[in-house]
């Protein structure tokens, strides 16, 4: 059986490789100038006073894609909550406090606030500079978990009431959808960025609905990552199976 798999892999891989290499040779050369959609996106972004074109594409021009992406994250978190729930034959055992070296602990506690603030800053400036809801959200959520290193698991659990994060994850998705639906109620297309003034170019409030959608995504990503990590940590640290089952 194993031999069959290797044969399949060799033939299939060689065939696909040949196809891909032939396709690469037909591609326009790396670094070419032909980007019609990209050029249009830059124009559209400038017309709506959004300095960071990528944010404009993500939260304005192709905001519907971002809705799908947000839903993927939402669904994956819900899926992990369901898949990593405590099964009937498992129980929780409080973990023994782990010994963490003092320098590590100091370092973690020092970095934690810096990382948190960086995350929030990156979220807030999404429409201006590189960064935005996704990046900032992940940074902030991961930063919170430095507490696991810096203090211990108990401390982490206290500042991390999971239910609140799960709710805020869902509320952020609701907020994004409601912002989209508002424009339908106003008689335009779903997720149309026409209700709010576009503001002054290169300021925090520029871009119409972009900062709001960006903030909703930031909130969603941060809470989602916290919930994800929490469930994996729970499995790794707390949940134990009954012996002899």
């Amino acid at each position, binding site marked *: 059986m194993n031999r069959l798999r290797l044969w399949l892999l060799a033939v299939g891989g060689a065939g696909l490789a040949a196809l891909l290499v032939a396709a690469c040779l037909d591609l326009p050369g790396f670094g070419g100038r032909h980007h019609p959609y990209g050029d249009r996106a830059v124009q559209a972004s400038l017309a709506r006073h959004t300095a*960071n074109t*990528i944010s404009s594409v993500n939260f304005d021009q192709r905001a519907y894609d971002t809705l799908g992406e947000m839903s993927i994250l939402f669904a994956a978190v819900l899926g992990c909550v369901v898949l990593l729930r405590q099964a009937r034959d498992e129980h929780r055992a409080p973990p023994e406090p782990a010994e963490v070296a003092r320098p590590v602990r100091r370092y973690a506690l020092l970095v934690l606030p810096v990382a948190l603030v960086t995350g929030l800053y*990156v979220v807030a400036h999404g429409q201006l500079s*590189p*960064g*935005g809801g*996704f*990046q900032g959200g*992940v*940074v902030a959520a*991961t930063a919170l*978990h430095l507490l696991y290193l810096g203090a211990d698991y108990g401390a982490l659990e206290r500042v991390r009431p999971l239910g609140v994060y799960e709710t805020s994850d869902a509320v952020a998705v609701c907020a994004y959808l409601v912002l989209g639906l508002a424009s339908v109620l106003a008689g335009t297309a779903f997720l149309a960025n026409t209700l709010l003034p576009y503001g002054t170019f290169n300021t925090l409030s520029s871009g119409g609905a972009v900062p709001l959608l960006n903030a909703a995504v930031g909130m969603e990503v941060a809470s989602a*990552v916290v919930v*994800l*990590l929490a469930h*994996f*940590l729970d*499995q*790794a640290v707390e949940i*134990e*199976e009954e*012996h*002899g089952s």
Partner: protein
Amino acid sequence: MADALIVVVLLLVAASATAAVAQRDPARQALVLSFLGTLLAALFTVLQAPDVGLSQLAVGSALTPLLIMLCVRKIRRRGRSKEDAR
């Protein structure tokens, strides 16, 4: 100059992707993946995509390897406690 830099980073990415696949121990693979994530972040920055680089840095070199490590730890702990029970 920029081209030379791109070539170097691309080859490094290819090499570390190979290493990530060749490393059959999942805990070590997580470390290699984290390195690969950092390299990709560098590549994206060189390709003038700082946004993507930033999120690759956060996701690829921190979050994904962390999840893999936690998963490995759970499986190992499980294996140990089963052996203790015997």
